[in-house]
């Protein structure tokens, strides 16, 4: 019993460790743009992996939705930074996000069938929760340009929708 509890604890610690912490410092607009864009790219890559490996049709459809929506949002973000003449700036948070995503990609690559579906959807729920939390508590309050703030606010609504959608798919898988 004690051993099992320890391994559960160890597993949940590993899971938490795979979610990078957002830097506590207030990011600048160029950094925020970079973080938001990077977060989108990460989910697009995850969707591409899922489209190759997913088994369940609802999981595949979800991955297609993620690919389409995140691409549309990132295209808008690119158009906005071009218009505002802002150059997105790489930063510790973007790097941590990318590093964690690489680890998750490698982990998912080893799975197949129903195990892959479950793990992909579980990560999508966790990932959207994390990004939405950061948008709400850090990125939106820190953004100074009103157009950037507006895009982030719309983005938050979209990703909250994704979070609910992912949770729905997850509940159907059980």
């Amino acid at each position, binding site marked *: 019993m004690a051993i099992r509890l320890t391994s559960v604890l160890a597993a949940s610690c590993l899971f938490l460790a795979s979610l990078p912490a957002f830097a506590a410092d207030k990011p600048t607009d160029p950094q925020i743009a970079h973080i938001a864009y990077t977060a989108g790219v990460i989910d697009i890559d995850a969707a591409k992996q899922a489209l190759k490996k997913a088994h369940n049709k609802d999981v595949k459809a979800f991955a297609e*939705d993620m690919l*389409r*929506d995140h691409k*549309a*949002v990132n*295209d*808008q973000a690119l158009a906005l930074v071009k218009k505002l003449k802002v150059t997105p700036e790489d930063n510790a948070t973007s790097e941590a996000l990318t590093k964690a995503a690489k680890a998750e990609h490698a982990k998912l690559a080893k799975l197949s069938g129903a195990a892959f579906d479950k793990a992909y959807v579980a990560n999508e729920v966790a990932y959207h929760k994390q990004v939405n939390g950061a948008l709400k508590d850090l990125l939106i309050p820190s953004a100074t340009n009103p157009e950037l703030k507006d895009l982030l606010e*719309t983005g938050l*609504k*979209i990703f*909250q*929708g*994704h979070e*609910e*959608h992912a949770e*729905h798919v997850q509940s159907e898988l059980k």
Partner: protein
Amino acid sequence: MSSPSSNKVRARAPRLASALLIALALGAMIVPAQAETITVTIEKLVFSPADIKAKVGDTIEWVNKDVLAHTATVKGGWDVMIPAKKSASLVLKKAGAVEYYCRFHPNMKGNITVSP
């Protein structure tokens, strides 16, 4: 000076007029109130207006201003795809109140009350 033919026309006129009146009166009784088209705009993931009152036979037209595809979906009922920057419509066939949502973004919700 009037020709015989124009006399004939004049004689027929009252009959034609009353026939028209009857047709109009009958028409008003038989033909139900004209079906309407109600427009719902989608912008930044919001259906607006979110609550609609309509009648059976009315058309709902969703105008999607977002760069994202949405749906108007009733659980166990109809499902309308509304592509990005496009419109889609549906003719209401059943009376009753329905709640609809977007399958892609389930946080988007709307209500339609359909009277017979």
